[in-house]
Structure formats: C-alpha cells, structure tokens
C-alpha cells in the first residue's frame, strides 16, 4: 500500500517521460539525497567519511562507467582500472603542467578532472576500435591489452609521473574557489557532488536516444544496424563515455582518496573488483552501480570484523585474505546463478512487494 502508483494518472507524454515518473520514487530519491548531503556530514565520523564513504562513491562512479559499457552497450571490459589510471595521471599532469591556467583558475581542479576524463576517453576509443571487428570474449581479451599497456606505459615513461621513481605520483592539493578541500567532510561532499551530477547525466543518457542505441547494439546488433544505428559510432561512444567516467573516478581516487598513487595500483585485480561490483549490483542499472560498489567496498571490512570476532583477535596470517578471495569468488558465482540482475533487481522486487503490502495479493 505504501508504494502504489494507482491513481497517479499521466495526462501528457511529458509527465510520463520524467526521470522518476512515480511520486514515491521522487520522495525516496529526495530523502536519500537529503540524508547523504545533510545528515551524513554531521553524524559521520572521520573514519567513515574518509575510509568508507569516499571510496564507495568513487568506485560507484567507476562501476557506473563500466556499467555504461558492459551493462548498457553490452561490451565486456576487463580494463577498467587502466582507464582510471589514465584519468588520474591525466589530471595530475594537467595540474602540474598548467601552473597559470589562464581562465577559471578558481575551478582549475575541475578542469583537471575533466581533462583526466577526456584522456581516459581517448584511451578508451583507441582500445575500443577493435570492437567493430570482434565481439564477446575476443573483445574482453582486447581490453586486457589496454590494462597491461597503460600500466606499462605509465611506469616506463617517467614523463607521465614527472620523473618520479616507479611512476609514483602525489596528487596536488584540491582547492576550489580558493578554499582548500582537505577535511574529511569537505572531501566527502566534494566527491558526492561530482558523483551525483555525473550519475544524473548518465541516467539522462541511458533514457534517451543514446541509451537506446547502446541497448539496441547490446541486444541485437544486426537489427540495430538495419534501423540505421551505426555500430562503430555507437560502440565507440560507449567506450568514450564509459572511459570518461572511469577516468574521473580515477582522478578522484588519486586526488580525494589516496593522495599518492602508482600505476601498479591500477592493476587487473582492481578491474576485476569493479566488474564484480556491477555483477553484484546489477548489470545495466545506474542504481546497481552504487549498490554493488558499496557491497564490494564494505565486504572486506565486514569480514575483517567478523574474523576478529570469530578468532578472538588472533586471525591466522594470510587466512583472512584468502578466505576473502574465496568469499568474493563464491559470491560472484552465487549471484550469477541466483540473481543475475543483482541487488538492483532485488530492490525492484522489494518495491513490487511494497506495492501490495500489507496484503498478500
């Protein structure tokens, strides 16, 4: 009874085409946003903001990027971390090599992030080019090429890291309108704003012609072609937009989370973790990207607490991390078998239940 759209009549297509057509959804989104914008910064302690919420948001953005490519456009990528690396190093070099950025110097950092995103998009387009000729596994393996090549290039060509040893970079200070963003609260809010805006843009893209073209290519490429959708153009756009999102996520990872990063940090393992986020969260769902990222970031923390409780503080060395690997792997298989559409689908089922609640039918 709580979640009923009965009686909400749409008198025009405009009303029916809103981003959240159902009143309860609007209220829910408003409440969630209010909670994360107004309540969390007040009640959240430093550890939660710095070590949990910020990475969850950043990985949500990366997962959203991968979801655009894999979930919406149907092109499996195993090189997400490489695109993040391109973004992080792009933003770093922009800050480094543009000391007197002439216009908008107040918001230079935002331009650095956009530049990082664009660099990642460029890399994405280059490694997306084979997608015209090859699909499925072949393409997945091709994206591995991106993974290894980018990390190699960033390590070997020390120009990218301003000639530091083994490519380590320390991100410059984040300053916006002359105000340093250096407290956990301000960093959290800064990341939150960027992620909210980009998530909104992504939602708009997937509900308009661009998104329909992506999904058409994903579901039946020959039919899409016959309708007049240009495959290469559509796939490359998906690669570019997806990599842009991953690139911005990588820049945020360097500037607002770790501070110091090295190319090796953006390894294959990280790419897999982001893939796991969208599998568990929901392939082809904006919401799922957030749920999956939260799940994968929180799981090791939860397991750690759990192990400490079980082994009374004396966790055998190595056992924790190996059990974590097994649980990760097991969960992936479990989700693929039981709920291939992930947490987002469970959320939807929950809503459908709410529609009838408290009556059984």
């Amino acid at each position, binding site marked *: 009874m709580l979640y009923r759209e009965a009686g909400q009549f749409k008198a025009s297509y405009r009303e029916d085409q809103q981003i959240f057509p159902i009143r309860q959804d609007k209220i829910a989104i408003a409440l969630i946003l209010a909670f994360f914008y107004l309540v969390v910064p007040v009640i959240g302690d430093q550890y939660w903001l710095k070590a949990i919420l910020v990475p969850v948001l950043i990985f949500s953005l990366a997962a959203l990027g991968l979801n655009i490519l894999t979930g919406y456009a149907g092109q*499996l990528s195993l090189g997400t971390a490489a695109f993040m690396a391109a973004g992080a190093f792009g933003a770093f070099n922009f800050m480094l090599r543009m000391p007197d950025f002439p216009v908008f110097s107040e918001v230079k950092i935002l331009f650095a992030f956009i530049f990082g995103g664009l660099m990642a998009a460029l890399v994405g387009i280059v490694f997306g080019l084979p997608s015209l000729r090859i699909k499925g596994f072949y393409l997945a393996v091709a994206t*591995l*090429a991106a993974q*290894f*090549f980018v990390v190699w290039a960033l390590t070997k060509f020390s120009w990218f890291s301003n000639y530091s040893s083994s490519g380590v970079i320390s991100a410059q200070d984040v300053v916006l309108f002359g105000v340093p963003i250096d407290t956990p609260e301000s960093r959290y809010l800064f990341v939150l704003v960027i992620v909210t805006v980009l998530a909104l843009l992504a939602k708009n893209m997937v509900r308009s012609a661009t998104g329909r073209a992506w999904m058409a290519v994903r579901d039946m490429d020959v039919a899409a072609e016959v309708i007049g959708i240009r495959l290469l153009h559509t796939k490359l756009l998906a690669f570019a937009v997806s990599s842009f999102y991953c690139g911005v996520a990588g820049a945020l990872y360097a500037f607002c989370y770790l501070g110091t990063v090295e190319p090796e940090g953006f390894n294959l393992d990280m790419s897999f973790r982001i893939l796991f986020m969208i599998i568990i969260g929901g392939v082809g769902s904006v919401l799922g990207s957030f749920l999956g990222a939260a799940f994968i970031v929180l799981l090791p923390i939860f397991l750690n607490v759990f192990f400490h409780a079980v082994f009374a503080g004396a966790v055998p060395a*190595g056992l924790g991390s190996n059990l974590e690997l097994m649980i990760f792997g097991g969960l992936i298989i479990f989700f693929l078998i039981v709920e291939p559409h992930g947490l987002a689908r469970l959320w939807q089922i929950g809503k459908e239940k709410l529609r009838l609640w408290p009556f059984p039918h």
Partner: protein
Amino acid sequence: MQFFFEVLIGGLLSGVMYSLVALGFVLIYKASGVFNFAQGAMVFFAALTFVGLMQDYNLPFWLAMLVALGAMVMLGILTERIVLRPLVNQPPITLFMATIGLTFFIEGMAQGFWGANVRGLDLGIEDVPIEWLAERYGIFTSKFDIFSAAIAGILVAVLAIFFQRTKVGRALRAVADDHQAALAVGIPLQQIWRIVWGVAGFVALVAGMLWGARNGVQFALTFVALKALPVLILGGFESIPGAIVGGLIIGASEKLAEVYIGPFVGGGIESWFPYVLALLFLLVRPEGLFGEKHIDRV
C-alpha cells in the same frame, strides 16, 4: 645471427608452454562453450597441490602426481556440478564471468590450504645449455626447455589421438558442434563435460609442473593464463592446431620483440606485446588463424 636463433629457439620453446596452457582453454571451450578464465588458477592449484604433497606429506613423485590429478578431477566435477550446471543456457558472457569468480575462489583455496610461500620444484632435469649445440653452433639452449617442450609436444599428440580416435573423442566433437543435437542422439552431456574438465585439469597439472620447475611454484603461475589469452585470440578458441601454432608465434615474437624492440621503449614489453600482436592480427583476419569464417544468418 647466432643470437637471433638463440632468442628464436628460446621463444619457440616457451611458446610450446603457452600452447599447453591454451590447450586447456580450448578443450573446455570446445566441449562446453565456456571460456574458462580459471585455467590459470587451475595451473597454480595443480602445481601447488603436487609440490605440497611431496614436501609437506613426503609422498613419492608418482603418488603425489596421482593424488594431485585426483584433486583436479574432483575440482572439475565439482565445477561442473556447482557452477556450470545451474548456469546452463545462460549467455556465454555470464559463464565467463562465473569462471572469473571461480578463479578467485581457487586462488584463495590454494593459498589458504598450502600457504602463500614460493616453493621450489625439481623434476631432475638441469637448466643448463645443451653442450653439443653450444659447441658446434654457439647457440645456448637449455636442456630443461627442450625437455618441457618435448613433454608438451607428447601431451598434445596424445590428446589429438584421444579426441580423433576414441569414442569419447567423437562424442566430444559432437558436443562441440551442437549441444542439443548431441543430447538428442544420446550422448551423456554431463559426463562428457566431466571428462573434459578432468582432462583440462590434467593439462593444467602438467603445465603447472613444468612452469613451476622453471620459476618456482608461486602465485605468479596464475599469470601464465594471461599469456595464453593472446594465443587463443590468434589461434581461435576452438582450434587445437590454432592453440599450438598460436603459442609458437606468440612465444617467438614476444622474445624477439623484447630483445629487438624492447630496448628502444624501455623494456618490459612482454606484458602487452602479445596482446597487441594478436589484436592487429584479428583486425586483418577476425576468424583467427584456423577459424572458419562465420556467417550471421538473419
């Protein structure tokens, strides 16, 4: 010129090893349409189990090998039962992602049980240059490399005969061609899958022993699988000859590239060069070395 041949031979010999790992992929792909990303983890698990049994439980060589083989077959059967069967009729990409999950699981299991230390493995073959080759032609080629290439070669030949000449092999080829049709003529699909996973486990064990003897049995063995992927792209997922020739090409070209191109770009290009090579090749010939041209029926 001598140096060139030395590099070339070294590359070809390591290429045989890539072929061996790629073969594990091809077997499973042909039989069940699954791109088994966990093949590398299986190599690692097999080698670790074998060495662990010898070192921690003092089992003799052949017994350890037998028990490790048994463990691999068990692993294959359980994978078929727990992972593949519930996912039957799912899109291939879903199955692929499930095997990535399986990879994590096996890696965690292997290290959780046997520990994460690097373990040495001695197969009794010395890693020294063959004298008469060195003396007569000045080419330094390791005895061990020749030995492992020979083992790999024999294994490939045995498998080829097995799949061409036996009843199981015929059934396997039928399954590879069309699951539904194979079921319809009464081929026990699940049994075939179990056999194939068992054989793939055996291949993984041999590959793991050879690689492990060379570089030590350690987590890095899982990366061997990553080397086999470009081989698959080059040779095609469904072609046994493709896996063999692809492995040789990748092995030789990667070593040559490292030696002749590497110095100009800072070295270490082995990590990505095979991929780029395979990709460039695909752009010219999307169906791979021995693949058949695929025509979409619409």
